[in-house]
């Protein structure tokens, strides 16, 4: 009985960790606006946490600049399983307009498989909420697969 409860609660209380790898902050303010009263992600249980240790879903924004590359890898490693990586905006997906620049270390999937990518520059908060809904599905499968 407890096991289904735990599995169900993964769907009900995913915690987010926001990881900015050199983004122009367009997507960052969109992520934060998801928690404002108008879009209110908290009613679905989302909560921004301060440390990767508490996170289930990692929201990555920005084209991976060379400065933030190894920090990205280290922080993503510190997130306990099951974890889901969501690329917010086009930059993590494909380094957007910064493609080919000397200081950009390429799209996110060079370092970690992207589970959900929300396109848009910046994506609309509703799109982010869609992305998070998809991320919850993947989180549940990963949790089932993890045991």
């Amino acid at each position, binding site marked *: 009985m407890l*096991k289904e409860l*735990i599995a169900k609660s993964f769907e009900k209380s995913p915690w987010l960790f926001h990881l900015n790898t050199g983004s122009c902050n367009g997507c960052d303010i969109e992520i934060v606006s998801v928690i404002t009263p108008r879009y209110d992600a908290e009613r679905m249980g989302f909560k921004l946490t301060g440390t990767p*240790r508490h996170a289930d879903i990692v929201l990555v924004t920005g084209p991976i600049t060379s400065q933030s590359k190894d*920090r*990205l890898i*280290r*922080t993503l*490693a*510190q997130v306990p399983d099951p974890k889901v990586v969501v690329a917010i905006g086009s930059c993590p997906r494909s380094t957007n307009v910064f493609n080919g620049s000397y200081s950009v270390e390429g799209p996110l999937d060079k370092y970690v498989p992207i589970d959900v990518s929300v396109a848009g520059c910046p994506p609309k908060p509703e799109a982010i909420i869609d992305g998070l809904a998809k991320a919850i599905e993947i989180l549940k499968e990963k949790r089932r697969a993890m045991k």
Partner: protein
Amino acid sequence: MQHYPILSIVTLFLGAFLTVIFGSKNETVRKFIALVASSISLILVLMLIKPVMIENNVIQYWMGNWRPIHDWAIGIGLEVDSLGLFFGIIAVVTIFLSIVFSFRYTEKDSETDKYYVLFLMLSGSVLGLVFTGDLFNMFVMIEIMTFAAVGLTAFRNYQEGALEAALKYLVLGSIGSSLVLAGTITIYSQVHTLNMAQISALLFNNLTPSTLFAFALLLAGYSLKAFVVPFHPAAPDAYMSAPSSISMAFSGMVNKAGVYAIIRLVYVLYHAMSFKSIQLLLIIIGTITMFVGVTMALAQNDFKRLLAFHSISQIGYVITAVGVSTALGLTAGLYHALNHTLFKGLLFLTAGAVFYATGTTDLNKLGGLAKKMPQTAAVFLIGAFSISGLPPFNGFVSKWLVYQATYQANLAPVTIVALLVSVMTLASFIKVAQSIFFGQMPKEFENVKEVPLSMRIPMWIMAILCVLTGIFPNFVTKYLISPAVSAALNVGKYIDIMMGNGYAEKILGKPVEIPAVDYVLAGYWNPVAWLVLFALLLLAVTIVAVAGGFNTASLPVDGDDSKYEVFFGGEANEYSHVKGNDLFWGLKYDLRHYFGFMHDAHSGIINDYALWAIFTTTIFIVYIFLLVP
């Protein structure tokens, strides 16, 4: 059974002399003599418990069989009542554990024979002071104690600050001793006897001005030995530079001897506890000592110096409780004195273990030792929790008694200060725990090992004692503390035993009944049931853990997988251990004026401290002349 007290004192002094003769060359002989001497005196004193504590009779022993003739005591008499024996037990236990600890602790030092000689002299003098029934003999023992302590403070003279600390202790100690001597002489000039029982009988409500003057001098002298605040600056330096086993003896025995002398002086000799003004004086001193001691401790950067200031603040607790002259107050005071010796001794031993393993006790240099020295860390935590008064440990019971006593005597501000001081004690020990045992470990302590077994045994013994006295308060009070309290309060029996019956019939009021501190009074929920709860809850949590879909904790695998690195904002982990004076920024910032004033007051110059001492003695004299009738 008559001869046990004198035998226990003599064995210690004999051990000191034998060490000089035989032990100067061979290390093991020295250790053997010290161990034998301390264990003999330990056994003798423990055998005294049954007759004195349980059957409640007082042992008297006249040196050279010079019995009093025509009701006039000429010879030196030893008188062991339960109050003296209580402090004697504390002293003897501390001596034995300290010697066992110092076997391996002083192996790196040279000339340890002088260490053992001085230490045995110190312990012999403390025992002598506690058992003696003669005022001048008490002065002699205080002299020996002070000079042995000065010698031991400067034992590691290669350490910077050791000689200066010893000089400070010497100057202040001799001021204290001269005050005591002056007081003793003035009393002698009045009552022409030195036997405490007879003095107490003769002084019963005929307090002439010169005996009051003697009372003030003695009170100042003894409180200097107990390192009460106005007189305290010598203590932190002495405790810091002395080897830890010695500073454990200092904080376990030496300032307890000062407290014993104050109790004996105020309760037994002068029956002064009936005067409201004396109670107020003791309570004011105690509260100031409490507060100044702990606030100074918060600002310290060295582990042993921090512990030294805590000893001062805990002595403040004891004196406040003793100042509240109700039976409950005295019970609280004595119980806290016992607990203080246990947990403070334990903490000094952990400081010694840290010094032995790493070579420094500076809070700003250490860190993360819990992984390398797990037992020392566990024992330190027990000591830290007991001193800050967390329930299952012994600090809680005695501190609770102090609050109950002070608040029932309508001293609300004192209770509030006491509770605040207790929280600040907790704060400073969290600071020590974080700076030394937890957090990240600096590179140079990579190959630190746990301290040898012979040092861990005394630590564990004290830790277990700490827990036991916390879990069974009524057992401890019934057998140890209530007899001592009754001995201090009904003085008549003390006098009759020494001077023959009927001598003190005018003092023999009805014996004050002692509230047995059981769970109703101690107000403490029966801790045994608390342990049952502990077991039940642990069971509950494990059931939930096993039944639930838990995955076991993934323990760090070797190699540099950054999953097990500490979250550092994504950065690679470099050494950034939050320690020493990085902590409590908010508090120090808010109280910066107070800390600034305290910093200037402790200037470190000896004549400032001497000025402080003389100034407070004059205040005592003026206060006592004005207020006592």
